[in-house]
């Protein structure tokens, strides 16, 4: 299983909009993807409510995992999404 650690930049908590963008990207992949805090079981990264439910705040470290072919590429694109400040999505 591949995993990557991302620190949420200032201004990027995983509330509705960032969660929707992240989940939208994760859901396009056929792989199993999770997101969670280090040392805790992750939640399904394809569930908007699950990801919002983490209540992750700016500055927090999150671990994203994926299993299967292309996992590394997927994780690096998800990392980019998480690290993009909100204004950058507009």
């Amino acid at each position: 299983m591949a995993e990557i650690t991302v620190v949420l930049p200032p201004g990027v908590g995983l509330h509705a909009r960032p969660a929707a963008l992240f989940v939208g990207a994760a859901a396009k992949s056929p792989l199993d993807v999770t997101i969670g805090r280090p040392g805790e079981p992750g939640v399904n990264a394809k569930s908007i409510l699950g990801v919002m439910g983490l209540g992750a705040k700016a500055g927090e470290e999150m671990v994203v995992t994926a299993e299967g072919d292309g996992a590394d590429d997927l994780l690096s694109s998800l990392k980019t999404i998480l690290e993009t400040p909100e204004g950058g999505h507009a």
Partner: protein
Amino acid sequence: MALQVLSPMPGRVANLSEVPDPMFAEAMLGPGLAIDPPRSPVTAVAPISGTIASLFPHAMGIEADGYSVLVHLGLETVQLNGEGFTLLKAKGDTVVAGEPVIEWDPSVIEAGGLPVITPLIAIQAEAGQITQLVPDGTQVEAGTAVFEIA
């Protein structure tokens, strides 16, 4: 069996296209509708029975039997960091449809420059799964069934 979704507050039923935020207007989170609340203190109630899977001062997500419904009180209200909202429940609590969850005052939020129109979303549902039960423009009470999710 279809699940009935209740209006979390009194107000006017509006089409999501009236919501000035593309994330909701384009149904990125899922289909639904919006409630334009009165400009006075109101209590937002649970739109369905289930578990509170995500809870912010300005938003609640409730999950039951594979259905998820999000109530987002106003727009861009995350930036208030909870100012103007009072939580009556905690994440993980089980609620019955119609049970009070968040108190807020739309007049205060609006005076602060933020829209108070409140999207009510069937998270990650397909547009074809929902049936609106009252026409746009209808004034409803908290607890009125406003759409069904198949």
